[in-house]
């Protein structure tokens, strides 16, 4: 490391020595490096170039400069898509964070069969979205005697149209997402809960804290880094939701579930506007980065609590 600061006489020899020492390590990272350059760095850089063209990838390729970004201002479907994306995040993140934490607290008790319940709750999370969509398309059918409407009927609520209703479609897909993912975040909360050293609770009791106050002053502060992690990860996931929307609603009804990623997909593959889709990808990237950054700052991700 310090070779650069040595006197010139020894400098070259030190550098040669360092290069020779380095060489045997490169074979270990070369595959990683190639995959990274081909599938990440190159597409990433070329995206900025493509974003300045109007192209269908076949015959048409026309330089438009910042035209694609100017176009965004007048793209009303994009505005709706962004609104839907944020709405989806609001319908998805808070319920998911709260439900997964409550379930983690439930299964963290020392009772029989807890391992079994944990595995059961994790199951939807390891199942792919196409399977869940095939199943829940049937459950969410608007027919009176389809599963969910039948259950609603039992408690006297009239049949709903779920995925076919412009006011319910997005919420239905968000609920499916919460149902699918709560087991995953339950495991993350559990790991955090179990990492809290028991002596801290003992000390709290000695100081006269019991019940809720014990959790208020010991558990919650110690869960803050995990809370930040869960909120940031779920938000980033919500902003990129695609699979369920693609299969279940195709962005409908009347664009009610057209989110940012769906809009990008649709512009590229339904309308062959690859230049515009690249520009939209840059927009999506910036939005996600800004939101993740703000959340990190606000939630003080890196703060050491101990």
């Amino acid at each position: 490391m310090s070779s650069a600061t040595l006197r010139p006489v020894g400098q070259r020899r030190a550098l040669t020595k360092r290069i020779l020492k380095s060489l045997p390590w490169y074979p270990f990272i070369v595959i990683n490096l190639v995959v990274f350059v081909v599938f990440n760095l190159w597409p990433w850089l070329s995206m900025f170039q493509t974003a300045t063209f109007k192209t269908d990838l076949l015959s048409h390729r026309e330089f438009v400069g910042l035209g694609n970004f100017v176009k965004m201002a007048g793209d009303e479907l994009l505005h709706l898509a962004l609104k839907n994306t944020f709405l989806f995040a609001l319908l998805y993140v808070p319920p998911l964070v709260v439900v997964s934490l409550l379930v983690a607290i439930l299964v963290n008790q020392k009772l029989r069969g807890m391992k079994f319940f944990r595995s059961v709750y994790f199951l939807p999370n390891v199942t792919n979205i196409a399977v869940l969509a095939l199943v829940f398309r049937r459950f969410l059918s608007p027919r009176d005697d389809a599963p969910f409407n039948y259950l609603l009927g039992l408690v006297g609520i009239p049949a709903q149209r779920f995925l076919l209703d412009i006011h319910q479609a997005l919420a239905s897909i968000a609920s499916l997402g919460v149902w699918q993912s709560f087991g995953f975040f339950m495991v993350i909360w559990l790991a955090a809960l179990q990492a809290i050293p028991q002596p801290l609770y003992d000390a709290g009791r000695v100081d006269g804290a019991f019940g809720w106050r014990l959790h208020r002053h010991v558990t919650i502060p110690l869960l803050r880094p995990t809370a930040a992690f869960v909120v940031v990860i779920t938000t980033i996931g919500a902003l990129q939701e695609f699979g369920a929307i693609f299969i279940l609603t195709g962005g409908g009804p009347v664009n009610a579930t057209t989110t940012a990623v769906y809009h990008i997909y649709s512009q590229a593959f339904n309308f062959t506007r690859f230049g515009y889709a690249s520009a939209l990808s840059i927009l999506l990237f910036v939005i996600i980065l800004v939101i993740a950054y703000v959340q990190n700052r606000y939630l003080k991700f890196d703060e050491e609590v101990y």
Partner: protein
Amino acid sequence: MSSLRPQAQRSPLTLLRVWIGFQPNQGLRTVITYLLMGVLAVSTVGPFIIMLSVSLTQNIRFLLFPIDLIPNPITLENFQLLFDRTLALRWTYNSFYVALVSTLGGVFTSTMAGYAFARGDFIGRNVLFYMFVGILIMPETALIIPQYIMLSDLGLVNSYTALIGPWFASIFGTFLMRQQFLSIPRDYDDAARIDGANIFDTWLRVLMPQLVPAMVTLGILRFMGNWNSFLYPLIVTTKAEMRTLPVGLGTVARSGGDAGLDMAGAVLGFVPTFVVFLLGQRYIIQGVSLSGLKG
């Protein structure tokens, strides 16, 4: 002890606080816990049981309640139809092939790169390390379009190379394995060096055997992740015979067939990850906890 004061307002929040805190009535608390967890378990597993049951039912056009959970007669007709009418068999093969190669490749390259980053002292190490951190931050969906354009330029759309390529290296895996190598004392390396082993032998013969559990964890996570990926394989395949199973099933769902056919497809897509989950759930849950703790 504020929450236990008798005059405390009985708002739902207070009740929740009392319940989360310690309660004198441990028995009641246990009953409520089991009740809640039971309801939740039924809502989690129920849809899968109904899926299986409908897939074995004869001539079922719609899924309507109430249904017989044990169909009479039990039939495999729906699966027969699925294999006859769609390319489900081919999709299953594609998914297995892609997931296995991706998993093996990803775990292999992660142990190599993890070793280099843990033990190596080479020019550019820190720069590369931070570049990898940078990739980890980048949202995948923002890269989908340029990735498609690149693959299209190279004529790789509808190829296994495209499906497997990005999975052949794992940044998360590299970090995980680096941590694992760092947890092994350097004394092992030194002893091996004295016995005449070079860095390659040290990696393969001395350190790797100690990391088998971590490699299994990573392998299972990679397999699940690859099998369940949807957007990327959707975009890099346009021919029906190159689809992976989830993407193929997505087209089945959109085509609006019988409930029986749909559920047969769902069972086919469900079983492989379910089996892997049953066999490796200890590793999976451990792996997820690890990723969260390091957060």
